[in-house]
């Protein structure tokens, strides 16, 4: 279980390789990589600045990661979230989960990205043609995160 909150970019291939790290009990590694898009709600985005709450961010991400490990049989996991000014195409967030079972890796990866969207203290300021605008929280993100509120099966449905 690793959480990193950093201004610097990250190397996806190197992170995945480090997570697997010569282990031979991992059957599947699921990854979600979030990138900055050049549009939002039809508006052109020149850049965005991610602000966060140092200390609490790491704490919340660690709690969300621990929750994933309690729900699925994970061998390893990693969350990296950047802050600072980012441009379209830049990497923002990386979630990696490894398990003997592919379903556990895939489900927990989706869980982590859904939860950190609504529970990690980050705020996005977008630079649009109309000036700088704080991004509003989306109902669809709340709904995606709420799906995981029900107590799920402790084991993946399709044993591998």
């Amino acid at each position, binding site marked *: 279980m690793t959480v990193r909150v950093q201004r610097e970019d990250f190397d996806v291939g190197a992170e995945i390789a480090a997570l697997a790290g010569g282990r031979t009990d991992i059957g599947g590694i699921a990854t979600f990589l979030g990138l900055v898009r050049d549009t939002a709600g039809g508006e052109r985005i020149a850049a965005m600045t991610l602000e966060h709450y140092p200390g609490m961010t790491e704490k919340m991400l660690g709690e969300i990661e621990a929750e994933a490990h309690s729900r699925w049989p994970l061998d390893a996991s990693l969350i990296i979230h950047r802050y600072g000014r980012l441009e379209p195409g830049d990497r923002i967030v990386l979630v990696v989960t490894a398990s003997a079972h592919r379903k556990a890796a895939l489900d927990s990866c989706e869980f982590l990205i859904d939860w950190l*969207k609504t529970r990690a203290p980050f705020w996005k300021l977008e630079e649009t043609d109309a000036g700088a605008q704080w991004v509003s929280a989306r109902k669809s993100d709340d709904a995606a995160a709420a799906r995981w509120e029900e107590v799920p099966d402790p084991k993946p449905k399709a044993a591998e």
Partner: protein
Amino acid sequence: MKILYFAWLRQRVGAGEETVDLPDDVRDVAGLIDWLKSRGPNYREALRDTSAIRVAVNQEFASLNAAVAAGDEVALFPPMTGG
């Protein structure tokens, strides 16, 4: 008490962080927000709509009726938009 502001709350208040001496009669988050609003138009403007404000006390999410005390770190911010 240390108070932190993020995103547009920080911009409207005009500060990201301040240390305040809490009046004795402020015992919860709602009371803290009311007292802050009495401190000037920037606070009144920033804290006008409490439905748009999220709160953390000592880096844990908290509700408006959560207790606060002198040594606490309280953060006020809009709904989060990470990921």
